[in-house]
């Protein structure tokens, strides 16, 4: 789905099921003005599966409200005892997530393949999402 807000910034959300893990691809800018729609779309597109991979590899930019959208999604899937892995390559977005301490609760990898592998082999984060 494409969402276009008043500031001519677009984000696109699509998803696929790979080996019973839902891979959600987000493209564009996850920023103020988009994020209410992003929160809604993310939650509405949740499918029953073993776990979730949020692919942010094509996210051009993210701000504090975009981080809030990710957190909102994570809390939603945690209610169902599911886990999530974030796929990110962009060094600045990774830095923002690190400064925000997201790397304490989210497992972050560079590729979808690595996420699928680590889901099968198991992974740990410093803090559990259900600690909130």
């Amino acid at each position, binding site marked *: 789905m494409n969402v276009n807000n008043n*500031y001519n910034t677009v984000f696109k959300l699509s998803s696929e099921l790979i080996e019973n893990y839902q891979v959600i691809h987000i493209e564009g800018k996850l920023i103020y003005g988009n994020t209410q729609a992003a929160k809604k779309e993310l939650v509405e597109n949740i499918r029953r599966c073993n776990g979730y991979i949020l692919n942010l590899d094509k996210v051009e930019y993210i701000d504090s409200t975009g981080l*809030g959208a990710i957190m909102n999604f994570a809390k939603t899937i945690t209610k169902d005892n599911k886990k999530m892995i974030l796929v990110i390559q962009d060094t600045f977005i990774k830095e923002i997530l690190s400064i925000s*301490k997201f790397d304490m609760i989210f497992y972050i990898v560079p590729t979808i393949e690595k996420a699928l592998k680590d889901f099968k082999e198991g992974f740990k984060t410093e803090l559990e999402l259900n600690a909130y």
Partner: protein
Amino acid sequence: MELEVIKEVPANYESIYVLDEFCKESLIKTDFKEWKRLYFAVHEAIINSVEATIKNCERPEEKTIKLRIFASTNEAEVHIIDQAGGIPDDKIEKLEERSLEDVLFGDNGRGILLIKELVDKVWQEKEEGNVLKLYKKVKEV
């Protein structure tokens, strides 16, 4: 290259994008090495400024927000000027005590904390309106 520029726009949601682009272009033009961090912080400050103007001001549609940028290759200072009254002192005191870990599981509340982390100095002054000032210097390797 040294640069001093100013842009004034109506205090509305559409202006966030306009000021974002103005800030980004100005910082890149001067080849300021830490532009991404400062740009992120300025974006967050502009959001706060627009929201505060719409929430706190009478006739917000008549209000404006100004962005003043002083930049060179090694350092930059950005002023966000509005008529919304600035961050109340008690809120600033609370901010001093809070960290990003405190808001880790929240959907919001991390904007101003991120600003603090991303720039070297953030302070506010009263001039022709409320002025939030952000300063960033390139770290020497």
